[in-house]
């Protein structure tokens, strides 16, 4: 690999500030706890000195990290005793993500992660480089991409001008809808209550006394209403605040086959994702979203870490958090030209699917119902019957609404009785097609058709996996899909 003589760079000088602040944050919390519990002069206080070697280690790592841009690769050298030189070819880079905390923003620097396919952690992490350096890195990495794409341009006809268009921007109203998640809100409230209890807010005598006096002076109905309203406002307020902090200024842009996402109120995050890197698309619509005419779109890529809370999970969660139903086709066709879920020819599952789903749901419910009736013979039965009815209803509804579609270059699967999930992948992203038969499937001459892609690392995304197909149909679909996949070149 020939590379021009490249300038080696260190991390930005000012980046020592967030580095040390970050380390302090990690160590100050335990230190504060030690101080909290050991108010007098105790030996534990000396533990705070551990801070020093950590910081020295950080500074040493910071000093030894050097990076450079070769003709077609990123080179990162690092290490004090064990030195490593890592060459990451631009062509292998999946995405270049940027993260700026407030401190980063004040110093005009950014933390940058470079991810390739495979591997559970980022290929290279440049903890702090200047924004100009980030732009240069991004331009170089993806300039190579555009060249490579042009040299074998056999599809798309996407010689479009590289002007960027905004596919999605979230308004405050959108953020409000997104924040209406009672479960998460309740968790935040519980955490807040727990913390305030832990730190003794309720134990302070004046607060407690004032509270008691107020409770005694208020009629019970009013009291209950006020408390309930207060809890609701608090819960949803906190949830809204969390959503705004994460997603403020959310924007999804596309230019020349490249998606750019930016978001964040305090901490800015920017992600760059080439269209071709999308292995799996998931469109989800809850009952709630349906009421507002919205859907949520997530995508799976081959890069990144599993469940580590890093860039990849965030990207999956935030590709298009909330989209007007009418705007969905424009986003989908930006992912894959011409992709339109409503235009697909959906094929239903086998007729017996409903029956099998009902049996399955009831068998799963049986132990619970038995326990209910055993402990509360009368009320248990009264409660169990409507529950069973709801299960049967949703099983039948789910089976009726489920289906799959094979279109030009696309395979899609939709499911769900109330929350509908549509998973889409593409011929050139199919890695393997698996036909599975359980003993129950054999009894009904059924089979399950599972499509394996490289984008399933995030288990939160539903993959294309179609159950309860007639075996003959499943085999025919398998043959067609495998043949189509073999014809289409896979590109990461």
């Amino acid at each position, binding site marked *: 690999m020939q590379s021009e003589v490249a300038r080696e760079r260190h991390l930005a000088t000012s980046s020592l500030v967030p580095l040390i602040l970050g380390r302090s944050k990690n160590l100050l919390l335990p230190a504060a706890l030690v101080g909290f519990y050991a108010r007098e002069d105790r030996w534990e206080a000396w533990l705070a000195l551990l801070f020093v070697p950590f910081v020295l280690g950080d500074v040493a790592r910071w000093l030894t990290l050097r990076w450079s841009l070769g003709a077609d690769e990123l080179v990162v050298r690092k290490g004090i005793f064990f030195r490593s030189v890592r060459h990451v070819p631009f062509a292998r880079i999946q995405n270049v993500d940027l993260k700026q905390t407030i401190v980063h923003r004040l110093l005009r620097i950014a933390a940058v992660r470079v991810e390739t396919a495979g591997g559970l952690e980022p290929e290279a992490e440049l903890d702090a480089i200047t924004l100009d350096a980030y732009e240069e890195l991004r331009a170089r990495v993806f300039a190579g991409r555009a060249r490579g794409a042009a040299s074998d341009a056999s599809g798309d006809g996407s010689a479009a001008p590289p002007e960027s268009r905004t596919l999605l921007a979230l308004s405050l109203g959108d953020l409000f809808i997104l924040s209406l998640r009672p479960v998460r809100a309740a968790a935040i409230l519980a955490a807040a209550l727990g913390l305030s209890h832990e730190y003794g807010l309720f134990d302070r005598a004046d607060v407690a006394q004032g509270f008691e006096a107020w409770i005694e002076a208020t009629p019970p109905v009013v009291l209950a209403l006020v408390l309930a309203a207060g809890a609701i406002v608090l819960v949803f307020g906190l949830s809204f605040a969390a959503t705004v902090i994460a997603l403020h200024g959310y924007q999804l842009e596309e230019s020349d086959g490249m998606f750019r996402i930016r978001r964040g109120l305090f901490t800015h995050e920017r992600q760059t994702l080439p269209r071709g890197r999308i292995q799996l698309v998931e469109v989800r619509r809850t009952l709630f979203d349906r009421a507002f005419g919205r859907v949520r779109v997530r995508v799976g890529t081959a890069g990144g870490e599993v469940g580590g809370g890093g860039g990849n999970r965030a990207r999956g969660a935030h590709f298009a958090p909330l989209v007007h139903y009418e705007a969905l086709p424009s986003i989908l066709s930006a992912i894959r030209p011409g992709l339109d879920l409503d235009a697909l020819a959906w094929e239903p599952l086998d007729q017996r699917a409903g029956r099998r789903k009902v049996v399955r749901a009831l068998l799963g419910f049986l132990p619970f119902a038995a326990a209910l009736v055993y402990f509360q013979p009368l009320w248990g039965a009264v409660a169990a019957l409507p529950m069973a009815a709801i299960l049967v209803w949703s099983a039948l509804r789910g089976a009726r609404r489920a289906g799959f579609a094979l279109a030009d270059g696309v395979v899609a699967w939709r499911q769900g009785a109330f929350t509908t999930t549509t998973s889409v992948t593409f011929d050139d992203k199919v890695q*393997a097609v698996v*036909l599975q038969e359980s003993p129950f499937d054999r009894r009904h001459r059924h089979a399950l058709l599972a499509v*394996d892609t490289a984008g*399933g690392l995030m288990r939160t995304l539903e993959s294309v996996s179609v159950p309860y197909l007639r075996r003959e149909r499943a085999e025919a679909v398998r043959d067609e899909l495998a043949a189509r*996949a*073999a014809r*289409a*070149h*896979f590109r990461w």
Partner: protein
Amino acid sequence: MEHDPNAGIPPALPPYADGIERRFEVAWIQVQRTGGLIFAAVVLSVAAVGLFASIATGNLHGAAAWATCAIYAVVAPAWLALAALWPKLEWDKAGWRVLPDRIETRRGLVWRSVTSVPISRVQYTDVKQGPLMRRHDIASLVVHTAGTLGSEVEFPGLARSTAVELRDWLVAQTGSDAV
């Protein structure tokens, strides 16, 4: 979508790329059976020694001792019989086939699956041989894809020469399809 008319259609097909399903080598039954029996024998003899020791030292006595012996008397032969019979039953349902553009393996007795891997999706391959397999001159070909649910697809009981030949052919095909 990038369609390449020549993708997946190799210049020279090996003789078994005919789409006809083949069985794995019969020796695979023997290998599985021997392995399963050795494992069962080791576990059962450790259990027998433990049982004997507890009774001899008096830790286990009376009805409990008789009950444990009875359970052992049922479980031990059942396990050995299963270990002896299962590989043949599994072999009966297993198979593999090679098509010009994909390879397939059929596995499983109770939960059955057929996995199809387009040849252009093969990332790399392993040919594996345990000591028992070496004695019967069979090998297992493992095909790795970039997938996530089942990125390793195993062809467990091929003749060693077939496994190597198939591997060489796959490598030659995928070499032209740079990712």
